């Protein structure tokens, strides 16, 4: 393909722009490394996991309670949201009348657009006091799990919905012609065929849950300790950054950049996982 001079100028300028867009991730990683360099040099990587506690002003940088907080909140939210989201998608495809399915899809879309700070506000004012009735004060791991599962549900539900839409109609007709019950059709044909799409949805949901800041900050209580029960207060890595960045200096600030680096590494791993899964599909 030979291009005219104008075309070649265009392509090179487009490449320039794409390079900038593509380089942002690299730039983010570079700045996270630069930001975390001082504390890496002074304290070393091990101190983030082995120090006695998180007292950054006293050069103690143990991030594990926050890491546990992030992990527990995420696992809880994903395991609660996934079944609900998949059922929502099945509801739209197999159970709801067409008009209701359309309304329900719009509702899920709107749910996806509500800002996290509003979820947080609702969680703080409504959900946490209700949990507080069982075990005071209410701002807890449980509140975080519940709020996050509502927040990531639309992400998983929309991707599950899309994955189920991609199951060929001929499979459905085949199942119907053989007199399969609806559940057999769903469990043996629809869900296995849509599997890679469903998994991608769960991974995206996990990514959102682990990266979410504001809502968990508002409802989790933010005590720096590894929680012993779901009614205990927790602090996630993200909330830790948001809470302490405003006054952190020197190595304290650098250790917050380390948390950012950990978060980015987790997200990177999840994106790669999604990539591998979507390539490994067998049918359809």
């Amino acid at each position: 393909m030979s291009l005219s001079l104008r075309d070649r100028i265009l392509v090179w300028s487009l490449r320039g722009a794409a390079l900038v867009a593509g380089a942002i991730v690299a730039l983010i990683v570079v700045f996270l490394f630069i930001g975390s360099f001082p504390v890496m040099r002074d304290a070393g990587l091990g101190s983030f996991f082995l120090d006695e506690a998180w007292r950054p002003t006293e050069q103690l940088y143990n991030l594990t309670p926050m890491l546990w907080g992030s992990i527990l909140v995420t696992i809880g939210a994903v395991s609660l949201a996934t079944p609900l989201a998949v059922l929502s998608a099945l509801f739209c495809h197999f159970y709801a009348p067409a008009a209701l399915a359309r309304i329900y899809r719009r509702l899920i879309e709107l749910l996806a657009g509500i800002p996290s700070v509003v979820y947080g506000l609702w969680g703080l004012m409504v959900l946490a006091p209700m949990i507080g009735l069982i075990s005071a004060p209410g701002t807890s791991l449980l509140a975080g799990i519940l709020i996050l599962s509502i927040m990531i549900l639309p992400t998983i539900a929309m991707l599950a919905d899309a994955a189920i839409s991609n199951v060929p109609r001929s499979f459905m007709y085949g199942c119907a012609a053989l007199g399969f019950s609806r559940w057999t059709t769903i469990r043996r044909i629809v869900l296995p065929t849509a599997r890679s799409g469903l998994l991608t949805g769960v991974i995206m949901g996990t990514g959102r849950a682990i990266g979410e800041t504001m809502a968990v900050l508002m409802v989790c209580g933010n005590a720096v300790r590894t929680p012993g029960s779901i009614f205990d207060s927790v602090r996630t890595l993200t909330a830790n950054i948001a809470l302490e960045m405003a006054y952190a200096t020197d190595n304290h600030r650098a250790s917050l950049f380390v948390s950012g680096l950990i978060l980015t590494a987790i997200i990177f791993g999840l994106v790669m996982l999604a990539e591998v899964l979507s390539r490994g599909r067998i049918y359809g």
Partner: protein
Amino acid sequence: MAKGRWNRWRDAIVAVTTWTAAILVAVVFVWLLADIVIGGIAKLSWTFLTEAPRDAGRAGGIAPILVSTALILAVCMVASVPLSLATAILLAEFTPADGIFGRVVRRSLDVLAGVPSIVFGLFGYAFFCNTLGLGFSILSGGLTLACMVLPLLIRTTEEGMRSLSDDYRRAAAALGMTRTTTIFKVLLPAALPSLIVGLILSIGRASAETAALIFTSGYVDRMPSSLWDSGRAITVHILDLAINVPGGTENAYATALVLVMALLIINSVASWLGQRWLRRSIVR
């Protein structure tokens, strides 16, 4: 036949479970929305929108916050639209010839889409505020958000251009038009609907953002006099009133109501236009 009866029972159980899940999701959504409306409607008035906040936001309105938010969004769009347009054109029109470069750009955008907003905040703080010397300013906040919405904008634009029929390209090539002319005179106008939908969705995403803004555009709730001033975004205002200002709950609710209404309108318009203009909804 016993098996047939069991199948019917199982189908009924699954149907009840599915309906229950769907109703549960809908109830939570209505509950959340109702709570925001009931909590915020009393304070909401024209003066609330046009007055400056007083007494740390407990009294008065949110006029400067609205202005700051609008300015942040404007900066975000001015920076992100040209960049994402160029990248999308490259990916949609020139990548097959481009091989590895396109793949790398796309992959890095996938990762960028997953990066937690608080990490964007850290990056924006380190890069725009410190390295580029923009300080806590509307400019820093807008540019940080621009990095954040880039993947969404690029994907919607690219999909819009890819969905155009190849007949356009062939017809233009048969007329001896250069690729440049084809893109700017034929393809972009034809893809305009999806560009607009992508733009509206990005505005929605950006205005829902909090964590990326707290250390980039800052907390100052005065009316900004230039882009180099610090300005408090509407989400940051809600956060601040909810967790830092005792007695700020009512105004937090009223502000949240303003934001939720704006977002519902923005997302509904995008989805309505999307369904009208595009066969396949790209709302995700």
